[in-house]
């Protein structure tokens, strides 16, 4: 049997066509509410990608999505659907806040290191119980992780209101972190090598950590023994047991890694941007991670590209809401269409493309 179509078509062409369809339908919707689709598109592109200021926001969002997207991808290689990224990132934020508030850091770099460890540890811990329930009791991970999202939200609410809130504040948020823990922005990092970049955007040094995480996850999945076992387990649990791969161990380890990756998002959002712990610092990025992983085909490079796309949608959408009468809800519609076509309706595009390649292959013969 031969492959139906070349790998590049599978990885790039199909998502691009899906994306195009999503944008065309979005354009029709914009047209239907009486706005000009071309102007709207132009506004989104210039707003999100036309300046380093726009890029600053796009990349900030993308950093969040890379972490949560990788979290979903890693678990997915073991056929575990971790939709608890939201809760794990929330707990990651708690870890970051505790580390930044309680330890008198001498330098931001050490604070970053501490925050990375704490965010990963707290995120992993929040994934540990659902993982254990799945591995030992067979409680479905989809159910348990989504329930843990709500528990995480309630826990944070309680802690912010009753424990972490500074005396006299009316805001359910932690105290501001000491200045020494503030992370350098991407403008400062790029300034070191002489590249000008807009100040005043939230993108910070954690974007480099996110890129490094992509590389590490790639190596983990395709170059290490653990990754081999994860993939084998994900393809067939029965066969994995035959080969002597321990399902309980793999489930636990994969979910800990996944939770840690989701938790790392907080380094960007909590330490890098807000500088304090807010009630909803995750802002749905845990769920966007699912779409990002889906669109990125669970490959770190795909996740990277998909995260930038969704960062663009977030930032471009904000620009639309700011400058046009297009309601903010429409941004959600556009995002939903992109998720629908690149994820759920993937086959609708894939089949015809496969047919075309089959015809092309048969043709010259």
């Amino acid at each position, binding site marked *: *049997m*031969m492959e*139906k179509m070349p790998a590049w078509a599978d990885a790039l062409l199909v998502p691009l066509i899906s994306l195009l369809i999503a944008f065309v339908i979005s354009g029709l919707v914009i047209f239907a509410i009486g706005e000009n689709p071309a102007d709207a598109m132009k506004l989104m592109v210039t707003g999100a990608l036309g300046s380093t200021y726009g890029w600053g926001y796009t990349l900030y969002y993308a950093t969040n999505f890379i972490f949560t997207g990788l979290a979903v991808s890693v678990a997915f290689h073991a056929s575990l659907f971790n939709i608890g990224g939201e809760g794990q990132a929330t707990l990651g934020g708690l870890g970051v806040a505790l580390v930044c508030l309680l330890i008198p850091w001498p330098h931001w770099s050490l604070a970053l290191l501490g925050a990375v460890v704490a965010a990963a540890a707290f995120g992993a811990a929040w994934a540990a119980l659902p993982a254990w329930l799945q591995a030992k009791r067979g409680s479905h991970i989809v159910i348990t992780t989504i329930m843990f999202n709500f528990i995480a939200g309630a826990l944070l609410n309680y802690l912010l209101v009753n424990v972490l809130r500074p005396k006299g504040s009316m805001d359910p948020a932690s105290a501001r972190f000491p200045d020494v823990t503030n992370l350098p922005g991407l403008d400062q990092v790029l300034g070191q090598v002489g590249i000008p970049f807009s100040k005043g955007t939230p993108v910070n040094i954690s974007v480099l950590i996110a890129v490094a995480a992509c590389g590490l996850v790639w*190596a983990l999945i395709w*170059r*290490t*023994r653990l990754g*081999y*076992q994860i*993939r*084998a387990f994900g*393809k*067939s649990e*029965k*066969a994995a*047991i*035959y*080969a*002597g*791969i*321990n399902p309980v161990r793999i489930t636990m380890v994969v979910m800990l890694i996944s939770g840690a990756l989701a938790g790392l998002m907080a380094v960007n959002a909590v330490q890098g941007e807000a500088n304090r712990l807010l009630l909803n610092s995750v802002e749905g990025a845990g769920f966007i991670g699912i779409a990002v992983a889906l669109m990125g085909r669970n490959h770190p490079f795909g996740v990277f590209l998909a995260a930038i796309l969704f960062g663009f949608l977030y930032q471009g959408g904000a620009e639309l809401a700011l400058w046009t009468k297009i309601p903010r809800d429409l941004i959600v519609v556009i995002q939903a269409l992109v998720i629908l076509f690149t994820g759920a309706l993937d086959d609708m595009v894939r089949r015809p493309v496969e047919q075309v390649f*089959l015809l092309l*292959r*048969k043709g010259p013969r």
Partner: protein
Amino acid sequence: MGAQSESGRQATAAPIGPPCAIELRGISKAFGPVQANKDISIQVVRGTIHGIIGENGAGKSTLMSILYGFYRADEGEILIGGKPTAIPDSQSAIRAGIGMVFQHFKLVQNFTVLENVILGAEAGALLAGPLARARQVLGDLALEYELDVDPDARVEDLSVGHQQRVEILKALYRQADILILDEPTGVLTPDEADHLFRILRGLKEQGKTVILITHKLHEIMDATDSVSVMRRGTMVATLATRDTSPEQLAELMVGRKVLLEVEKGPAQPGRLVLDIENLRVRDDQNVERLKGISFQIRAGEILGIAGVAGNGQSELLEVLGGIAYGTGVVRLNGTSLDLTGHHSDGQSRRAQGIAHVPEDRQDLGLIMDFTAWENMAFGYHNAPEYQRSWLLMDNDAIRADCARKMARFDVRPPNPALAARSFSGGNQQKLVVAREIERNPDLLLIGQPTRGVDIGAIEFIHRQIVALRDAGKAILLVSVELDEIMSLADRIAVMFDGRIMGIRDPATTSERELGLLMAGMGEEAKGAQ
């Protein structure tokens, strides 16, 4: 070969002859780029048993699925009783008088025989009338064809052979004139198979037409009047059974001469390798599947486990391979194995020198989406020669090792980067066998080594097993193919209902004796000896 198949074709293509129950003209069917059936024409004479033989993937099942309305042919036509007939779905097939007995029965387990027979042919809202009518019809059929089954028994309580009779009754109740049986003897004991063939002959005498699909040459020789041979989607020959021989059929199937007998010298058993005492295994439902088994295997010896599938053979392989858990004593080279699963798994078993070719290579032995080289490391992913460092695997080393083993075992195509699912069944099995045998284990567990494997590869795999034995290794062979056990094993243990009914020497036992043991009749078997 050409001349023989030509003459065969002419024999059935003669214009004047008995009327055809079914005629296929130029049937073609493609799945994407794969041509499953290519211009197939065949005439099945009314009132005969017609065999269709071919290797796995030759297109037999596709052809029958077209006949039963599961697939629609791209080209060609079907004539039933001389009339062109369209069969877009299975209802039309039933109306056209075609009945199908599938390899995997389609019975409702907790219904009675009677309820199963009328299922889908209830004829009305109330059941009392049809049930009474069916009871009458069933009684007549039982007398006519030796198809006696208790109509009020629940299907789950019936033996496999009886369940198959229910399937046949279902077809006959729907007034099938043409009965198609797909690999019907795979799950039967030799006695049950004999009984089935008696039933089929009875059907034939009553003017029914039977199409028998099988890969077993001796069944074709025993039971059929004429036989069509398929190879790679084409019909290579149709012959009168009395004019052909197993050797000729095998050659037609494979396209070259094959050795049907395994060449092997006498065993030279050495030291004791595997010593099993009172081994017991329970399944997930806490049902005891192995009920106190004891046997030994020495170095340089093949012990064959014969038996109808589902009598504990799988559990035996799994508990020895570290997949299932049990109680009792199992010693390998004098050292006790942990059977509880607390300190053992597939990894520790491999480390102790046990290699395992599982019964189900697609479910257990291979990851179908993995490449060949990734599969070559499967189960041996901790092997030191596959590591670059404590963390990273040496994928280049695995690829090279895989290429070497694929060459030695003649796996085709010899491309380590191809996904396991792109290989044929025989080549998949060669991958697994290469991986396990090349580790040079002290004990090889091998289940159904040639299930779904083409004849050419069977010959090769059998030679490898014998070579491993001659290298002084112990081999535990489980197979439901009695022929395979008879020709490969140095001693034969017969399993029935989780017990070993007896251990026999293949040189002095008979198929009949083994068949009685397989049916759990130890006393009668003694009489037969």
